[in-house]
């Protein structure tokens, strides 16, 4: 639920719990090792879950700040690679056009 300023945790607390549980599962350990060659780090999901619950119970400003910083760090990590191609401002103009009926010879 949002507070009077309209802020609420970026994800429902149940989502943080689900991510933490998934991260700590044996199956995820296997997947992560298969991809990255090291064990996964799950502590940040636990901290975020605690912050989310703290905010829900006490509307803690510290918890709010902690959650925002954590999620901004995730977004930065996801965007730090340099793109190979230029993004479009609009979809391809021919996406919805009908198929050509015949190929040109």
């Amino acid at each position, binding site marked *: 639920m949002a507070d009077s300023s309209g802020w609420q945790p970026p994800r429902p607390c149940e989502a943080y719990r689900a991510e933490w549980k998934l991260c700590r599962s044996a199956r995820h350990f296997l*997947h992560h090792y298969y991809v990255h060659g090291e064990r996964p780090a799950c502590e940040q999901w636990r901290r975020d879950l605690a912050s989310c619950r703290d905010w829900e119970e006490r509307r803690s400003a510290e918890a709010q700040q902690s959650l925002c910083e954590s999620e901004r760090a995730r977004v930065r990590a996801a965007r730090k690679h340099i793109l190979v191609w230029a993004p479009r401002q609009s979809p391809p103009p021919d996406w919805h056009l009908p198929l*050509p009926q015949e*190929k040109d010879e």
Partner: protein
Amino acid sequence: MAGAQYERGRGPAAGEQLQQQHVSCQVFPERVAQGNSQQGFFSSFFTSNQKCQLRLLKTLETNPYVKLLLDAMKHSGCAVNKDRHFSCEDCNGNVSGGFDASTSQIVLCQNNIHNQAHMNRVVTHELIHAFDHCRAHVDWFTNIRHLACSEVRAANLSGDCSLVNEIFRLHFGLKQHHQTCVRDRATLSILAVRNISKEVAKKAVDEVFESCFNDHEPFGRIPHNKTYARYAHRDFQNRDRYYSNI
């Protein structure tokens, strides 16, 4: 034709007519001869075509990878219509499918897709190419790095390189083997549609790997199985709340 999925066996011989056809005209003959209409072949290929259509329908309606990709493409202005953007056809060789950027259509090789799980993976793979085509200026036909990037992403995010699939291919490896698989399969996919040497294809993959392996859009993570894909879809549906509260 860009982004053909290459399973095993040799790629086709070289041949060029229109700029965009390259070697793909040898792999997808129905795309070259007498247009794309399937009516002339329908009675001969009824059974495999019908199976392809039914499996495709089930994938589009139930598979969490595909449902997320369809939502993401709709959000980007490329709503997908099954009859317009998918085509079940017979293909040469052992290719499973491809994305035809010149017609904005995904080709599914009905003679090479034999079960529902394979259909799920092929549709996911090709929709990743379609998603890239929709959101970026991808030069499929003259920029080998662009093609390599989309192939890296498709191999990485579609489940092509899952541990189980690699074991079925008798490729045994655990620590970081996923990355080896993605590099290898991306290279093979490029070779299936471009008449270039293996070294050139491999070099293109190496140059773009760091960037494209870490580009997980629209999933936000590598979806190792359907649970991860469902979580990714949940996050995509929640994105308005997410970005307005960080």
